[in-house]
């Protein structure tokens, strides 16, 4: 993640032309498109391997737990 953030602030690309890739893609656009694809891969990894699933009893909002019976009427209400 840190590497991605450093690569995002790409001071080394300032003023860099390098023509048009494939005849129509500016270098800076290609660089950030590639960056986004790597970021997308990180997001896919995060959602599969890092992001914990909810408990089974948290899936159904209509389940009769004491908490969700009390819609909007929680502890802070006068």
């Amino acid at each position, binding site marked *: *993640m840190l590497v*991605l953030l450093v690569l*995002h*602030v*790409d*001071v080394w*690309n*300032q*003023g*860099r*032309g390098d*023509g*048009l890739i494939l*005849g*129509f*893609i*500016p*270098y*800076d*656009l290609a*660089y*950030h*498109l590639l*960056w*986004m*694809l790597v*970021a*997308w891969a*990180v*997001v*896919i990894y*995060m*959602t599969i391997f*890092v*992001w*914990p*699933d*909810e*408990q089974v009893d*948290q*899936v159904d*909002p209509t389940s009769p*737990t004491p*908490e*969700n*019976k*009390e*819609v*909007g*009427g*929680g*502890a*802070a*209400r*006068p």
Partner: protein
Amino acid sequence: MTTIALVNVGYLLITLTIGAIAYRRRSLGADDYFLGGRSARTVVLFMALFGTNVTPFVLLGIPGLSYHHGIGVFGLNAAIIALGVPLTFYLIGYPAYLAARRVGALTPAELYAERFASPAVGLVLFLAYFVYTLPYMVTAVIGVGLSAAVLTGGALSFAAAAAAVLVITLLYTTLGGMRATMWTNVFQGTVFLGLMVAATAWIAADLGGPTAAMERVAASRPELLVKASGGAMAPGPWASWGLAIALTVIGFPHILVRLFAARDATAIKNACRLYPLIMIVLWIPAVLLGVWGAIEFPGLVAKASDSILPMMIEAHLPPAVMGLALAAVLAAVMSTLDAQLLTLSSMLTRDVLGRYLPRFTERREVALGRAFLLVIAVAVFAIVMLEPASIFEIAAFAFSGYVTLVPVLYLGLRWRRMNAAGAITSIVAGNLVLLLAWGGLLPKPWVILPVVWGLGAAIVGAWLGARFGPATPEAARRRVMGPVDEVFAGPERSG
């Protein structure tokens, strides 16, 4: 003109029909009206988040900015959003969804008031949301006015278009609530995404193909194809704007509420997986049309470039597609405006009036929410008529403000020691310092933007308040954070 009108009447009729169908499917409870019964699956949730997030800031403001600053605008905005949105949904959105579901909270202000056992936190949060959402709504309505004026050749005035979009959005939002806004978002997102892609392909072909279009830019304005060395592209502004745009989306109350409406974690995860890809599909056309427009319509100064997208469409596309273009801008505006209206009205009725005035029945709460929608719409229209600044400038102001709320949103759900004093100190300090920075009263090392000051002050304020303020009653903390702890740390640590 007739063709454009017919296409737009068709678009509006479809939108109202979807709203009417949602109205017939409603039940009478506040949970159904404000959150659609918390039943949004992947497609509806993703399109609702996407439709809500995309405004004339992207469709008009980004082409306008690219007109002046070139291709670097893509990297400045789209790239970091593609990472920032899924990451903040994981760090803040998902815990908020878990906690809101457990305690039955319908709004962010309500959730955090419960977390800190403090109605004052809900009130302060509502005020901050109100202050920044109002100008953000203004950018949307300005976008409609500009597009209508250009695409209809002045036949539909700026004021008439702005009023019309507010009235129609009010109609279906008032009747159908969250379910209507989410269903219409699916249709609206499809309309503006399809239009942007199709219009770019069409215009590129009209210019002799993408290679010819780019070669024209390279020949006459080569600096537009290169990331500039100064201004907004210098490292300080670049990094601080990246911080703002990556964090601001989760700060939008209308986005957080959409996450509350998710059916399950899978729907939120799938939305995160799709987000980076949809950013690419939408933002490349927005930037390219601005850059190509700089060659075709040179000489636009400052906020005049906000009209470059409708100008390009008017110059290259037949009337039917021009009609679709206006419909697309309407779609982008309405899909955000409806969510913003609904969220602000629900916070006012539940988190302010509901707490400080005698308690309402749910039916009265919904009725009051509808009345407040009208008041907000009138206020937005009045500000729109002043046309205070460019779409990008107004959005930048709002985005910076939302970022100051992020420390409270995160720490409130992930830090046990966070308390009401920390939340209020964070919001007040963050916004005061942001104001000072906007006023030019604070130094700007490395030319950083005011948002960095605001975020820093909000973090320090949160720590100071938590350090010296009274702790939140354990029962209240556990009631809200319990489901979050269970999922992220396991049940043994949550108790």
